């Protein structure tokens, strides 16, 4: 079946640092979303990015569909960026298959 793998599984950052999270998938993507799950468990849409690059404030994402990966960049990290970041891609039937997530802890 479709596989979505994320790395690293865990990331500890000092406030103000930059980081890159990676999402690899096993076949060509025609839909990819990034989510942030905050410490309260809420799942927050970050980006819908089947290809190309998007930016939203300190976050940006790039998907290279032909190479089967997507990257999420966090710049000037803040403690509120802590949580788990998931990527997910659409599979046949329009359901989303999620990766295992990257757990981010930003220390003050």
């Amino acid at each position, binding site marked *: 079946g479709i596989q979505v793998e994320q790395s690293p599984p865990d990331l500890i950052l000092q406030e103000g640092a930059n980081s890159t999270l990676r999402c690899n998938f096993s076949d060509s993507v025609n839909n990819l979303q990034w989510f942030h799950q905050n410490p309260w468990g809420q*799942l*927050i849409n970050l980006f*819908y990015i089947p290809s190309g690059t998007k930016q939203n404030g300190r976050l940006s994402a790039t998907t290279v569909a032909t190479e089967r990966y997507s990257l999420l960049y966090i710049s000037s990290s803040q403690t509120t960026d802590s949580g788990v970041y998931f990527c997910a891609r659409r599979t046949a039937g329009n359901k989303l298959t999620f990766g295992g997530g990257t757990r981010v802890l930003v220390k003050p």
Partner: protein
Amino acid sequence: EPEVTQTPSHQVTQMGQEVILRCVPISNHLYFYWYRQILGQKVEFLVSFYNNEISEKSEIFDDQFSVERPDGSNFTLKIRSTKLEDSAMYFCASRTPGRPAYEQYFGPGTRLTVT
């Protein structure tokens, strides 16, 4: 900005009891989904719903589960006889048939605890 809402935010129930989780999707959306996340694990697809019927369901979505759109705004997930292993965060999502065609919008989740 329109958003998907879910109630309750947290529900505690005893094993064997029925629970109904409620969702109000974004008003012009026509495709609806339920996902589940057991604590510490990845988010898993349960079921998709379109045109008043299930379009797809996962192996998790057995006979204990059902979904319904009882009116023009609500979308519900019912678990008939809860088990301990049903304890999880349940997310509702919806999407529009328009562009971008496949972006799903998630609600904040309902944390279900079965004791």
